[in-house]
């Protein structure tokens, strides 16, 4: 019996020891020769950029009537060049200049009835993006002057407090997030003390959104204009001293949570008719907001509250006030996967029933939801993302879109991106009119 026990012990321990010794063999495998690594040197000027070829294919439009623009099929063959130079002026000051240019060959290749407005909006563009100098006046004060982007708020998908920069709204749901905000010229002073940062801005440039071309598949104006009515171009207010915009934020970062307060007088993101509907312009709105996020375990909870006043509409005479509220949660507890959901509620005070009519098309209470799921794979070479954003009135869906795409790094320099966007119709006519804009898209970028 004793021998049997000893034999069993010997056998099991032998197996364990053998396995362990066997596993140790994993260290002995011959090493792989690695590529020569270029040591990054600190240079006074650093240039980086990207060259992107992008295309899209519309698959849901109806056959157009004679003389109308045919939006079906291949709708984009665009080349975009982005160049930026970061310069170090001295130990305390640096600068950045970024220029972006694009040309979309589809407007010359396709035999189509594109209007001048469409060609002017979508065919080509050369533009200065960010252009600023940034430095420290003292150990606790920074100054940044020039065209820049300032992101307010804590949410990732729904913009409530994020009012400083106008947006590129030319193709809702199709503009890359990095190109969505348009930089504006401003002077920004930051004061830092412990966990707090006070940021004051004077915005010198009166810049407004880039809107979709009149009559394009992203702005089908016929839905709210009378036949043969002219839709006037939007007019940007002059960038004069009188039209300066002001913004102030106070940001605190603490163990496990962040808190920000915002206040601003900025240009409204929405236009209104003036001069007996012969022109359109943008006026100033005032806002006060607060945003916070709290990290608990693998969850990041977000909340935002914004009060806005002086909102002008086309279907009412007086200005309105609005209160927006957002709650969000992001979960990162599953390896390689991040999921977030955000819910926003917007309430207009002294609402008038006429406001539901186009072009305003707003309800007294509107909700917006955003769901985003991202999954990275193959050692972060690939990222699969699903985004769904929907707008609701009290009882129904107003419209929205869902988008799914795959981004994959073919090398350190080349990446591809393919996906599909599905526009969802609903009660809001301006959103419902986009519901047949569904398209596939694909692009390839060379980053240098």
């Amino acid at each position, binding site marked *: 019996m004793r021998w049997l026990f000893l034999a069993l012990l010997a056998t099991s321990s032998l197996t364990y020891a053998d396995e362990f010794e066997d596993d*140790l063999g994993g260290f002995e495998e011959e090493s792989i020769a690695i590529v020569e690594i270029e040591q990054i040197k600190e240079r006074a000027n650093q240039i980086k950029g990207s060259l992107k070829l992008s295309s899209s294919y519309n698959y849901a439009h109806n056959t157009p009537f004679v003389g109308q623009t045919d939006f079906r099929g291949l709708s984009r063959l665009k080349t975009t060049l982005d160049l930026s130079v970061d310069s170090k002026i001295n130990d305390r000051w640096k600068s950045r200049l970024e220029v972006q240019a694009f040309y979309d060959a589809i407007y010359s290749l396709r035999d189509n009835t594109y209007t001048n407005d469409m060609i002017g909006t979508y065919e080509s563009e050369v533009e200065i993006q960010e252009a600023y100098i940034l430095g420290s006046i003292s150990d606790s004060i920074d100054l940044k002057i020039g065209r820049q982007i300032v992101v307010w708020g804590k949410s990732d998908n729904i913009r409530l407090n994020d009012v400083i920069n106008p947006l590129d709204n030319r193709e809702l749901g199709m503009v890359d997030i990095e190109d969505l905000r348009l930089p504006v010229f401003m002077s920004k002073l930051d004061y830092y003390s412990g966990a707090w940062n006070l940021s004051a801005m004077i915005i010198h440039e009166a810049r407004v959104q880039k809107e979709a071309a009149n009559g394009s598949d992203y702005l089908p104006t016929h839905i709210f204009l009378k036949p043969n009515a002219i839709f006037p171009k939007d007019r940007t207010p002059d960038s004069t001293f009188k039209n300066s915009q002001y913004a102030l934020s106070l940001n605190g970062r603490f163990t496990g949570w962040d808190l920000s307060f915002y206040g601003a007088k900025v240009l409204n993101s929405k236009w209104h008719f003036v001069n007996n509907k012969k022109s359109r312009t943008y006026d100033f709105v005032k806002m006060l907001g607060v945003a916070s996020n709290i990290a608990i375990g693998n969850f990041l909870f977000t909340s935002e509250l914004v009060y806005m006043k002086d909102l002008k509409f086309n279907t009412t005479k007086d200005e309105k006030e609005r209160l927006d509220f957002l709650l969000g949660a992001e979960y990162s507890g599953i390896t390689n996967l991040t999921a977030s959901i955000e819910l926003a509620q917007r309430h207009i005070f002294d609402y008038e029933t006429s406001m539901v009519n186009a072009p305003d098309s707003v309800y007294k209470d509107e909700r917006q939801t955003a769901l985003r799921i991202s999954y990275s794979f193959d050692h972060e070479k690939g990222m699969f993302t699903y985004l769904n954003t929907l707008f609701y009135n009290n009882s129904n869906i107003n419209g929205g879109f869902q988008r799914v795409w795959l981004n994959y790094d073919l090398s350190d320099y080349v990446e591809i991106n393919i996906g599909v966007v599905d526009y969802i119709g609903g009660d809001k006519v301006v959103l419902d009119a986009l519901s047949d804009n569904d398209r596939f898209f694909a692009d390839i970028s060379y980053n240098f």
Partner: protein
Amino acid sequence: MKIKKILLSLLTFSTLSFAMDAFEIVTKVDTRDDGDNIISNMSMVLIDKANKQRVRSMRTFTKDFGVDTYKTIFFLAPSDVKNTAFLTFDYDDDNKDDDQWLYLPALKKTKRIASTDKSGSFMGSDFSYSDMTKPDLTDYNYKIVKEKKVGKHNTWIIERVPKTQAILDETGYKKSYLFVRQDNFVVVRAMHYLDDGKKKYMNVKKLEKIDGIWIATEIEMKTTKNKKRLHSTILQFNNVKLNQNLNENKFSVRQIEKGI
């Protein structure tokens, strides 16, 4: 006679008595002076099954604030991640989650990261976030398995097993073997067993004494399954400078937004 020999050797294998016990050794590893106020350039080479390689270059700043460690990582290359920066406050207190912020230059936004799951890949590499931080010693049971020479140096091989399922879930390692050099208490090799049958091999390929402190300047981490290499990562540290004049401002959201 043969059985007796085997038994004796096995008993030796499982119950070796050493001058120090396992916990004393890992305590020595944990309290070893690993430098402070450190600036270094870090290169990360990601190598896939087909030996195709990708390179990430970063500049890192590390400082101890009491028992807590603050770290800033600025990405230098490749171009698509350049100017991305990561700030982490690694708290010694187990009841306090680390604070982490990521600056995304494409979005011009600093995002707080909430994740207590440290089993995920560190920037696409074979290193997990738990590999990049110091573990809490009391979360594990330790046992000296044997002694072995690694190169010219004697090491203790220490078995480390998480005490709870929660710790296992957090790191992803159900068991690890740490090879601790006996002359300087540096972990020069480690073998980690994962739940899904994979194994990870950490191998310090270059160890240098900088300003009197042992620093691993080249480390390989290899992921295998059924003895086949699935992926590996080599971390190289260059231009390592210790005891630099790093003030608190270096470890702030202000700094990651401004860049180096």
